């Protein structure tokens, strides 16, 4: 279960951005820095039940990724609190941390460690991972020779080997092909049965309306609507 209580994320945007020592010192000497407040998220309150698949929609820049990053612990909210029951998968988008100069297998060791798996555990699961990703033949090929889709599949296959209670996914099905998408949807359905909670941001409204129990619509950082897929999507399209 996830409860979010009046969360805001405020960024201070300096009128002139000072990112160097000299600019900062110079700025302090001349005048105080002037900032403009920008709310990436404003006063979001909602709660999600265990075992729900939640869609997250909104225009570009509406705060979808910010919300996922806050839930994932990557960003901290400026105001408000949230609580999550269970372990959260510590990543948002697939393939982050993959290094293109390393081979697929080496990347799995590295990424696996970040996800909490030891080298031995990865070795045990290696056949499954490659099999599911369908890149068995390329396991010792450097990742720079992989297509974007193949990298996505590899990352997804590794991800399902970890066993999180809550998954936060940011646009992960954008790169899969016709075989991989049904495969991964199968996994999501299995997760749902097992009572895992999934929050996924996507622009694929068809997908959202088909698989999500409820949908969050963000509008310029505000909670536009939170409810059944049909109504929320209708409102989103009208906005």
């Amino acid at each position, binding site marked *: 279960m996830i409860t979010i209580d009046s969360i805001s994320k405020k960024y201070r945007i300096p009128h002139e951005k000072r*990112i*160097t*020592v*000299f600019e*900062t010192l110079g700025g302090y000497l001349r005048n105080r820095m002037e900032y403009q407040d920008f709310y990436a998220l404003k006063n979001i309150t909602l709660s999600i039940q265990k075992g729900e698949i939640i869609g997250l929609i909104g225009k570009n820049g509406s705060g979808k990724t910010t919300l996922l*990053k806050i839930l*994932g*612990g*990557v*960003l*901290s909210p400026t105001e408000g609190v949230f609580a999550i029951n269970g*372990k*959260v*998968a*510590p*990543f*948002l*988008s697939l393939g*982050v*941390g993959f*290094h293109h*100069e*390393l081979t697929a297998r*080496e990347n799995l*060791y*590295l990424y*696996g*460690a*970040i*996800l*909490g798996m*030891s*080298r031995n555990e990865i070795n045990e699961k290696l056949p499954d991972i490659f099999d599911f990703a369908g890149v068995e033949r390329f396991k010792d090929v450097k990742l720079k020779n992989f297509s974007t889709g193949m990298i996505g599949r590899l990352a997804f296959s590794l991800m399902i080997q*970890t*066993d*999180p*209670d809550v998954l936060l996914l940011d646009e992960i099905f954008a790169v899969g092909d016709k075989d991989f998408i049904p495969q991964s949807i199968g996994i999501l359905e299995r997760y749902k049965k097992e009572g895992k909670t999934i929050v996924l941001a996507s622009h694929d409204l068809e997908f959202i309306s088909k698989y999500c129990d409820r949908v969050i619509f963000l509008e310029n950082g505000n909670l536009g609507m939170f409810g059944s897929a049909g109504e929320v999507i209708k409102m989103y399209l009208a906005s």
Partner: protein
Amino acid sequence: MKKINYFNVIKELSWADFKLKYYGSIFGLFWSFLKPFFMLIILYVVFHSFLKVDVEHYTWFLLLGIIFWNFFADATKDSMQNITAKAHILKNINIPPFVIIASSLLHSFWTFLIGLGAFFLIIFIFGFSPTGTIFLIPYFIMLLTFFTVGVSLIIVPLSVRFKDFGHLWDIFLQMLFWITPIVYQHFLVPKTYIKWYLLNPLARIIVETRTVVLYDKIPESKQILITAGIVISIFMIGLLVAKKSSRSFVEHL
């Protein structure tokens, strides 16, 4: 899902860095020996042949100083570069930044140990038998490591906050190189300055290490205690900074 074993992450990250650094280069690890070797030749020619610096075992005196110096200089610079290079990981995965800093330092530490191993091999080949007090060297390796870790933990958040901090650090390192007794002996420093001069922990560590490795003596216990005190203070400040800044500086990346 299990709790993440940060030590495992640190190990895998530094191993990946190690592979990436030497992948596909013909000389591989050899490069990390070439740098101190050329530094040795240049400094030896300038200070021994031209300026007639006369120190007992000058080659080994110089090389030991260079190896210790390079560890500190490279490790601090690499830890700043590494945090920028791995910004995409920190921005997308909830792992503490110290994991990235530690992996970079571990990588530098291995390179340092390999270099030090090569140093002892070379002096052995050239017939210099290490003195009896050499058993103290792990202690000084530890001191240098704690100092380097402490400094890195302090400067990495600064380098993330201020994009030009790396340039300032380069200038600072250049200054520090000359106020550390790497090419000369510390008692050449005038009496008026020596009190301040010996506040530099790097100078103290290098002087004391040479004493035990090359000159078969054990430094005064008072001096050893002062060195340890300075190093531990800097290390504690580093830990404090790391704890305070934790994830917040990620937003500046």
